[in-house]
């Protein structure tokens, strides 16, 4: 069934179709419609779940973790300040191997107060041990929620589905709503290898000496390394059932391109239009949209980018005192490769400033005319 829905509701439908059993959430703009619709679904019985209306995001994640450890499939959603308040519990989720799935609406961090899109909120949580997916359409949001539960529960690692404030959260698009029985075939009920039960009592997360701690972290990393292959595998399985493939990256005219944009989120959608325009002018441009950010899709990125001479990484975020974060990641992935392109880093769109086709024209012009990365950061659209 096709429906015209907003990005936030795509998250709600994803959680509903995944048969989330416990939802604990706290409202924050621009995430509110996610939990509003889920509350309605719980109230009218469309979704058989317990909705805990907590008093903060910190408690939201804490409650999700308790529910997850008790053996329930668990979902929440937040944004920006809310995600930052959860920070401690994000470590808890991954370290405790609790496969919660969470939607995060990318919103710029205060101060000054901003409700508009940028990625510094979710990228500040890069090292918490969560799988991170960045989406560029409402269909992708819905499909990724379902896929994320499958990947997360298989490896017992939590997942974050990331979408841009307003550009996606509040934008209405046509979305194919999958049939419940088909989703059930793809995603069986949550059956964790361990849980809190008096029938088999264990202590979870207790004091862990230097003799044991490192092995827990080693195992987390080893399982993280399995994510890319599992995303490919579940993506193909999903495609068989629903006709839509969900991979680690999205390539658009990358073969034999002279310049490839590396993008994420809705800016990655705009980039495809920019590529079309550049190609119409005879410039062989391409776009590599990173969908899976954590773990970083090293193999895919290396494979694609080692075949092109120039790469322009667009960041809607910044690591102050360093570079854009995707730029760092791409450089790190390409370092020491037998064939590495010239990589430029651009920062645009902080705090919701629009990233337009013109932004990409400017980026392309810069990258095509330079033979080395002269500036640490090339700012696009900033009033200097």
């Amino acid at each position, binding site marked *: 069934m096709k429906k015209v829905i907003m990005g936030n509701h795509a998250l709600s439908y994803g959680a509903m179709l995944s048969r989330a059993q416990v939802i604990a959430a706290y409202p924050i703009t621009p995430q509110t419609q996610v939990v509003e619709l889920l509350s309605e679904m719980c109230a009218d019985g469309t979704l058989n779940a317990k909705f805990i209306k907590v008093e903060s995001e910190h408690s939201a994640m*804490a409650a999700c973790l*308790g529910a997850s450890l008790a053996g329930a499939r668990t979902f929440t959603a937040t944004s920006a300040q809310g995600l930052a308040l959860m920070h401690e519990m994000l470590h808890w989720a991954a370290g405790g191997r609790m496969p919660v799935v969470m939607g995060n609406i990318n919103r710029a961090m205060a101060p000054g107060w901003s409700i508009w899109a940028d990625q510094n909120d979710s990228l500040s949580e890069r090292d918490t041990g969560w799988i991170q997916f960045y989406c560029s359409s409402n269909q992708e949001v819905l499909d990724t929620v379902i896929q994320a539960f499958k990947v997360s529960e298989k490896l017992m690692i939590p997942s974050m589905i990331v979408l841009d404030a307003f550009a996606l959260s509040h934008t209405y698009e046509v979305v194919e709503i999958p049939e419940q029985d088909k989703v059930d075939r793809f995603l069986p009920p949550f059956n964790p290898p361990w849980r809190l039960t008096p029938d088999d009592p264990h202590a*979870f997360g207790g004091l862990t000496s230097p003799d044991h701690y490192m092995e827990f972290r080693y195992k987390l990393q080893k399982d993280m390394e399995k994510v890319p292959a599992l995303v490919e595998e579940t993506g193909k399985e999903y495609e068989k059932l629903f006709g839509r493939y969900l991979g680690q990256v999205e390539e658009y005219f990358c073969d034999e391109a002279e310049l490839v944009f590396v993008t994420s989120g809705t800016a990655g959608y705009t980039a495809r239009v920019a590529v079309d325009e550049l190609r119409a002018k005879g410039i062989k441009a391409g776009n590599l949209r990173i969908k899976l950010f954590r773990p970083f899709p090293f193999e895919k990125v290396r494979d694609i980018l080692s075949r092109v001479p120039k790469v322009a990484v667009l960041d809607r975020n910044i690591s102050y005192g360093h570079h854009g974060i995707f730029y760092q990641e791409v450089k790190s992935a390409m370092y020491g490769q037998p064939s590495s392109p010239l990589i430029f880093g651009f920062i645009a769109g902080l705090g919701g400033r629009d990233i337009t086709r013109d932004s990409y024209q400017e980026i392309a012009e810069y990258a095509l005319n330079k033979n080395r990365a002269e500036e640490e950061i090339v700012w696009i659209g900033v009033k200097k």
Partner: protein
Amino acid sequence: MSKERKMTITIPREEYMSPGHLACQGCGASLAMRLALKGLGQKTIVCIPACCWAVIDGPFPHSSLDIPIYHCAFETAASSASGVRAGLDMVGDTETTVLAWAGDGGTFDIGLQALSGAAERNDDIVYTCYDNEAYMNTGIQRSSATPIGAWTTTTPVKHYKKERKKDIIGIMAAHGLPYIATASVAYPEDMVKKFRKAREIRGTRFIHVFAPCPAGWKSRPEDTVKLARLAVQTGYFPLFEIENGERWTLNLKVKERKPIAEYLKLQGRFRHLKEDEITLIQQEVDARWEKILKNCGL
């Protein structure tokens, strides 16, 4: 004291706590857990945040309890327990009791917001604060449960604690909870009875357990039960219950309260107090006792 003698509840023989735990000598908190679980039984899951009990239980891969434990973040005893309750309900276990077990720091201070949230939602959990009146696990720093006049490592003798202990019972009573009780490790029958009663009630139950700490109070380990008893007999920590936010019942009617000095003098943390300061503390205790009697309709 007549009511005390009338208590006929026997303490169950079943033990859900093994001797190999890591508590200090004379630890009131470990005795509290042992007794609480005798009341709640094995079908219990406990959420323990950062507090002495995060250590007492024993390091990975050991545990001194025969019930499942979720070691949760410092400020999340209540929210974690709410989550566990919801999760259990969804997987079809409505029978198991979910216990949140936090110290005074995790309850009076850093966990108060989450506790208030769970209480307002009336989530179906038994929240227990075992109160040793300071951050004992980190080395005796003051909490808002530390009594006026006490020395701690952050309220040195020259500047001992000048603020009153936070009225946690008043705060919880204002939430209108179905069941609130105070309990003491010196009155095991009363305590076991209260946990058993709490188990049968639905909604948020709050039990405030007085748990002396020899290491932090600078008292003799063998005086733990004596101090807990004196706290009740002086009226410093009365034993009572509040049902549905309004019905107060005094469980132990102390006819002739002992002077607070008797309780204070056994503890090094009060050694610096002068007579006039002890008199002030006595007045505080008297005022609170009268208030509780009044609430109980006595």
